[in-house]
Structures are given as structure tokens and as C-alpha cells.
């Protein structure tokens, strides 16, 4: 699957516990094409992370669908849903690393289900660590890293399987200028191999992206395309 990722009437509502629900995404319609970075910006609490979670198959929508190559991937269940997630690389805003593990082990995590040998997983992970300039921390436990280093680990973990769909939530949040440029370059390389790249970020950081990314603004649960 290398075509676009589209949302059809996507609605996500969270129960508030008193019988009411908070609607975060409200019949959202959008298309995110392959080979181009799509930036989703919006205020805090607008639902950017929720949108990425739904696109990544981590959260089921309340109604509506996410389609990839005309298949309703958001409605896939069981092993099909797991296989959809294997095609997605997600960079979390809050890292979500395994704290009892080393950096290298965290990066190897997406490779284990693919059935490769342990040494092949290690080689691939080390290659990605080199790309994000974090090789020196390979054997360190994750809880000893700085915020920026944890972010790089998350990025490396997301990209180690060379996914066709890359979803990044605030990928440059804890990075210095040099590291931020490295991250943006890596995301750009993903578009070069025709991956769908969607980045959720604040308006100010959206300016730094190279090329001509597609821009959207998420407000009141609706996604509006913006002119570049």
C-alpha cells in the first residue's frame, strides 16, 4: 500500500463519565497523499494526537473510517489490525519507551514480530541509531537519557522498519536546531521513498519543514486545509 491515507466522516468522542461525551474529531474528512509531508497544526487540546492515534490504528474511531488504498483499515480487527500497525511508524509526543530496556532494545522492538534473527535486528537497529546520531547511547537504559535523546530514540524506533506511513507527533519538540534539522531531513527521506508522512506540530514549528508540505489546521474537531 503506497497510496494516500484518507479519513471519511471520522468522529472520535470520549465518554466523560456522566453520560456525556467530549467530541474531539467531528466528521473529519481529509486526504494525506504519499511522497509529501502533511502538517497538522492546531491549538493545545485540538485533537492532533488523537487524529494520529486513529490513523495509526491505536484508537478506534467512534464512527467513520480511515482508508488506505481504498481499504477501511480503521475497521480491521485482530491480526489484520496488527498488520496495519506494522506498516505504520509512529513517533509519540511523550516517547512511550520501555524504561527497563536499553536504547538498542527499544529500537529493536518493532523488528521482533517480523521473525528476523536477533543479530539481524541488532544490525538494523544500529544502522538507524547511527542515522539519528545516538550510537553512543545504544547500551544505556532509556531512563538515563535526556528528553532530546529520548525523542531521538522514539524517532529511530519509528523508522527502523522503513514504514510506508510515518506519523510524527511533535518530532522536534525537545531538539536543538542541529538535531531538529536531522529529524526533518529523515522525514524528508521518507517522502523520497513515497511514504505518507503526517506531522502534528504547532504553527511556529511548521515553518521549519523543507519543501512544500501540505498544511492543515485542526479546529473544533474539523480539519481545514491551509494554503502554503
Amino acid at each position, binding site marked *: 500500500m503506497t497510496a494516500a491515507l484518507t479519513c471519511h466522516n471520522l468522529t472520535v468522542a470520549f465518554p466523560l463519565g456522566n453520560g456525556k461525551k467530549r467530541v474531539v474529531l467531528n466528521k473529519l474528512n481529509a486526504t494525506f497523499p504519499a511522497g509529501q509531508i502533511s502538517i497538522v497544526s492546531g491549538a493545545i487540546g485540538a485533537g492532533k494526537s488523537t487524529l494520529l492515534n486513529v490513523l495509526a490504528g*491505536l484508537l478506534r474511531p467512534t464512527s467513520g473510517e480511515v482508508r488506505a488504498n481504498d481499504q477501511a483499515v480503521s475497521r480491521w480487527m485482530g491480526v489484520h489490525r*496488527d498488520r496495519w500497525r506494522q506498516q505504520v511508524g509512529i513517533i509519540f509526543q511523550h516517547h512511550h519507551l*520501555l524504561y527497563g530496556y536499553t536504547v538498542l532494545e527499544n529500537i529493536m*522492538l*518493532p523488528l521482533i514480530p517480523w*521473525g528476523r534473527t536477533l543479530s539481524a535486528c541488532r544490525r538494523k537497529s544500529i544502522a538507524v541509531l547511527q542515522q539519528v546520531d545516538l550510537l553512543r547511547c545504544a547500551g544505556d537504559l532509556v531512563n538515563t537519557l535526556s528528553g532530546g535523546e529520548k525523542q531521538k530514540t522514539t524517532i529511530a*524506533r519509528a523508522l527502523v522498519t522503513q514504514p510506508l506511513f510515518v506519523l510524527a507527533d511533535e518530532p522536534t519538540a525537545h531538539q536543538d536546531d542541529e538535531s531538529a534539522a536531522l529529524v526533518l531531513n529523515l522525514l524528508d527521506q521518507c517522502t523520497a521513498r513515497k511514504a505518507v508522512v503526517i506531522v502534528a506540530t504547532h504553527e511556529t514549528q511548521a515553518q521549519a519543514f523543507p519543501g512544500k508540505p501540505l498544511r492543515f489546521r485542526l479546529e473544533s474537531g474539523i480539519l481545514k486545509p491551509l494554503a502554503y
Partner: protein
Amino acid sequence: MFSTLQIWAFRDVLRRPVETLLLALAVTLTIAILGTLLLFPRALYDTIERLLDASPAIVVRRVNATGWQPLPVQEALSAVRNVIGVVSVRPRIWGVVRAPQGPVTVMGLPPDYLARGYAHQTERLPSRGQALVGAGVLSGQAAKTITLEGALSRPFEIIGRLPDPTSVFTHDLVLLNMADARQLIGLPEGYASDLAVAVFHEDEQSAILSDLTTAFPWPVQCLTRHQSAGMYASGLNRGSTLSAITVIPAVLAVCLLVMVNIRLTMGRQSELGIMKSMGWTTGTIVRLQLYRTLSVGLPSAAVGLVLALFMVYGPGTTWIGKVFLGWETLPPKLYLAPQGALTVLLEVAGLILVPVAVSALGPAIKSATTDAHALIEGINTQ
């Protein structure tokens, strides 16, 4: 040899050595204790059955309204020999008399008879005035004579002890010369305590009972080997029932321990959520949990089973009779037959390992139907 997932699981287990060790210890001890509780009645029954194989197929006793009566030998022999299916008949002289430490069973051995199992273990049979004694008869004292009181009181020279592996049946047994036994019990000449009857085929024991009973001119009571085995089985079943009830809380405790352990240390839902977001399938997560549990559970089970085997089958154990059967005074040394051990060990392993494996799978199976986002954030969106 091992897959990547298995190595990953094993390294996971080693990441938390203290918790792993505690879990292993709990599983080992639970299996050892339960194994002992369930293995012992079975082992005892198998041993009794094996020893009963050497006993007569049918034992015939003469009875009247008051109970046991001496049996006239010639009359009995001629009656029994006409019963189809009877191969041989042997009159037996035995009874219960008083010894210094309490009542004992005395048995008279004819001079031309060597009991199976004794022949290669005893040097000589007792002559007049001599006795072979079981381990429990002398309370462990190294006496050279023993005074027995029955119809009369007589001292006997002790010429040897009966072998320890036969303790279950010979613990309180005294073997005497036939004439001495007859005098001590008070049996007149030409009479016997009962008849030991051998049949052609094992299954004929029950089949010829009615013919055997009607062949005698006086009332008799017949006891087959199967009936004896059944009586022991029923008695042991009561004990094993009580033991089995202890299985319930033990299994529940182990399951709880495993679930808490898994939840706290190895299978935090957020970790499962992160794995799912990285493309781990439910099947992979379930297999990981299974490998984690079995890498601790299997070795612990093996050690526990070995311990149970040793406690039950360790040669000459006496403590187990004291604890389980209440044999306070000089419990016999037990040399138990291991034939039925495999069945019981499989039962124990199944009773413990299956719930442990299922408990470990609980969190993983829950993750199969919960959104990865909910697992990561620790919220319930169902």
C-alpha cells in the same frame, strides 16, 4: 535453537531477578507440596497392590455367629479341590498375640515353604523356638529374644529381621515354626486359621466365589485379592480426598501470585500497548507471555516434582506415614512402588502449570481486545 522471541522472553525474565526467583520458589514449593499430597496415596496404593499380587487370590475363613472359627484342614481341602477353577489350596496358621511392645501378628511357616520375596533375603527359616521379626516388633531395640503371650507364654530366639522393603506388610509380623505358631495361637492339630486358594485366571476370583462358598459344609467368609485391594483403595480415597481439597486454595494462591507478578513487573498494560503500537500482534504478545511464564514455570515445576518424588519415594521414609496416616508409634519404613508416579506427576503439573499459564495469558488476552492507545494511557474506553 531458540527463536528471537524466546530469547527476548528469557532476557525479560532475567531483567527482574528477585521477582523471578520469588515466583520460581512459590511454584516449586507449591508443586512439591501438592505433589507429595497427591503422590503419596497413589504410591501407597500401588505398593499395596504390588504386594497383594503375592498374596493369595482368595482367602477362606470359617465363621459362625460369634465370628472366626478354626478350620478343619482335611475336610476343607477335600471340599475345595472339587471346585472348578481352583488350582491349589494351602492351609495357613496365623493369629494375633501379645509381644512386649504390643500386639503382633504371628504366622507359622511350614518347613517346606518359602514365601515369594523372602527366599533370597532370609538366610534360614525359623526352627522350633526361633523367630523372624518385622522392624516394628522390637521398637528398634537390638534384642536377642522375644517373649510372646498367646494361648501360652514363650520366649523365642530372634534369628533375623524381615527385609525393610516389605515393611508395609511385615512391620508387626513374627514368623515362627508351624508347630510353635499353632501352640501359641491355640490351634489344635488338624486345624488351620484359614485357607489360601490360588485360581487359574485372575478374573476368576469373583466368578468362583459362589461355588466355593457352597462347597463347604459350614459357613465360610471368602475375601478375594480384588476385594482387599478395593478396601485399601476406598480407605486411601478418603485420605486423598482430603489432600485434594488442599489443591483448591493452593492453585488459587499460585494463580493470584502469577497474575499479580505478571501485572506488576512483566506485563504492565502500558508496555503491552507500546508493543502493540510497534506492530506486535496479539499472538506474538501471548507467545511472549507464555515463554516468560514457562521459562520460570517449567524449571520450577521440574524441581518441585523431583522434590515431591524424593519425599515420597525416598527409600525408607518414615515421616510421611507419621504425617499422613497418623502412624505415631514406630511407623514402618516405606519403600513405595513408583509405577503410578507418572500419572500423578502429570496431574500435578497440569493442576499447577495450566492455571499458571492461563493466569499469565490473562493480561495479554485482555490487550487483544483493548485499543493500544487505551493500554498505553491506562484508560478504559470500553
